[in-house]
């Protein structure tokens, strides 16, 4: 993962609550089995007309939001399925930051695991950002993970909080496994004294591959 400390970019406002991961990447694309290339599928059914052309009524297709790298969203963003394809698509589309009042749990973790910063702001502040983004063409925000603040060039400054672990991982570009492998000894010691036994077959089962 690339380290992340600050980002400035154009904002696209997606004015819907409860946006679910089924919408972000519809199931037909999750058959692909890769981690990359989902940017063009992001919000597929909203973004494209039945003939495959961009739907001019969908906000992502407004010329003024072309090249946006900050996604402004509403509450409970990323709800539903655990598919990480949603986070891969957000990243692959070019978004580095999402700003919303709240997120669903699994999507929240998935996004951070892919180096996408999710900023949580109070609903009134998100409202204000929506107003500004819709009013000003080419509206830009700067997001600083060092100082934990969001600013625009018109005196707006919103501080935000994020837990230290996730912040550090983003700043250093570390993934989970990297930081845990060092703890192999502790994990092994835990396994040695853990009360829950490994599964033992006591009756007939029909397995294709089986651990001997």
């Amino acid at each position, binding site marked *: 993962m690339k380290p992340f400390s600050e980002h400035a970019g154009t904002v696209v406002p997606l004015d*819907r*609550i*409860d946006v*679910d991961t*089924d*919408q972000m990447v*519809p*199931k037909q694309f*999750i*058959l*692909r*089995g*890769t*981690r990359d290339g989902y940017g063009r599928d992001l919000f597929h*059914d909203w973004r494209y007309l039945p003939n495959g052309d961009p739907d001019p009524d969908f906000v992502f297709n407004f010329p003024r939001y072309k090249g946006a790298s900050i996604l402004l969203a509403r*509450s*409970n963003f990323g*709800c*539903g*399925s*655990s*598919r*990480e394809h949603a*986070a891969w698509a957000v990243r692959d589309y070019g978004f580095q930051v999402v700003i919303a009042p*709240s997120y*669903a*749990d*699994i999507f929240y*973790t*998935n996004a951070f*695991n*892919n180096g996408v910063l999710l900023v949580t702001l109070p609903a009134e502040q998100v409202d204000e950002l929506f107003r500004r983004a819709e009013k000003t063409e080419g509206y830009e925000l700067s997001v600083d993970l060092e100082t934990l603040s969001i600013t625009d060039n018109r005196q707006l400054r919103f501080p935000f909080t994020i*837990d*230290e*672990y996730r912040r*550090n991982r983003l700043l250093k570009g570390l*993934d*989970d*496994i990297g*930081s*845990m*492998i060092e*703890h192999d000894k*502790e*994990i092994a010691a*835990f*396994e040695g004294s*853990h009360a*829950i036994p*490994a*599964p033992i*077959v*006591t*009756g007939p*089962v*029909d*397995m*294709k*591959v089986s*651990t001997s």
Partner: protein
Amino acid sequence: MSPRTLYEKIWDRHVISAARLPVPLLYIDRHFIHEATSPQAFAGLKAADRKVRRPDLTFAVMDHSVPTKDRRNAVITGNRAKLFDALDRNCRETGVRLFDMNSKNQGIVHIIGPEMGITQPGQTIVCGDSHTSTHGAMGALAFGIGTSEVETVLATQCLPQYTSKTMLVRIEGKRTRGITAKDLMLAVIEKLGFSGGTGHVIEYGGEAVRALSIEERMTLCSMSIECGARAGMVSPDETTFRYLEGRPFVPRGNDFEAAVKIWRSYASEPGATYDSTIELNAAEVAPKVTWGTNPGMVANINAAVPDPSSYANEEERESVIRALDYMDLNPGTRIVDIPIDRVFIGSCSNGQIEDLRAAAAVLAGKKISKSLKQALVVPASTQTKLQAEAEGLDRIFVEAGFEWRDSGCSMCIAMNEDVLPPGERCASTSNRNFEGRQGKGGRTHLVSPAMAAAAAIAGKFVDVRDMQIAGVV
């Protein structure tokens, strides 16, 4: 020590405190994987030259995109074939147990865990699928994870985890005739709101929950994610132990008695406290039908589609307007006046033997409406299918006009051939009615199996309580 909840006990016994990470490190007892969200994780491991740490704690199954029609002769091509090949190869290379699509123990990943007794009380369980919460019915802490986390668990058998808030959903009273766990859970989501459980682990308790079978508890737990909860769980009790006894991964004889003693020790203690509690009276719950594009958009069978103007909150009002537009419904339309095109009985929420019995009881000796384009029964597991056939349920379904299929996720997620076409309306026993969930442009109404069967006969929604049924649930 003050009284503790099931969640707190499982948590305390699984945190590796010696690791001293900034975030608690949780040990994972059982890891389930399937073809749709695991290939990238194995590829990541391979690229980093890492091994699967505990193949013996990992179980793989093919379910999300398997064909359900004449599976043994089905020709699978393209990306789907690649997913199955990848899972097969990855399991062979790493020694992970695999129940492939032709195994007698194949089934939806969250069903086969409890069904084989792999899932047991007190365990931590993860799977790259949001409905992993289903396993919580056995008194386990089970939650869905993303593919990066799947990779982390494969490599380390652990996950950095933040503690969740706890919520007790207490359902008291006795449900009335025709009311199922599905109706109870839709009532919970209606009350709590579509995102009301976010950040929480829900424990279901109270008289009505204690009276539920394990399969019914699985329906509740499965749908916990539908109000945003991290997990759903039910304290283990005699029902749990009785269910487990004799299953192929459960200890026998004296070992079973010893296991029960330990399992029992996980149950929430009287007086344990939760961050929040909500209460519901089962006696007041009516059969439910969703009318919108999330499971919180739900009404009683004898009610009507709501008017968006009745919503005070502007965002909510707009989302209801959008939902009605997508669903092609008008405010004020009575639920019983909504015609349907297809019926789907299946999924990890409602595709088990008790569900099939309930639907068959409604259908026995009747025919589905001529106006239907399709009616599907997809058992949640191959064992469920075999059991149903042994009981003759398949004949009831087929004689009524249903297609009797092989087990899998099928039209719950439409990753195989079972797709709801654009503009069509489906009465479905699955758990998600999002836009396009069952097929692009398809319109999903979530109901219980008995209600789905009743709708199949009428060609529209009807109150199953008004029907003459021998031995209805």
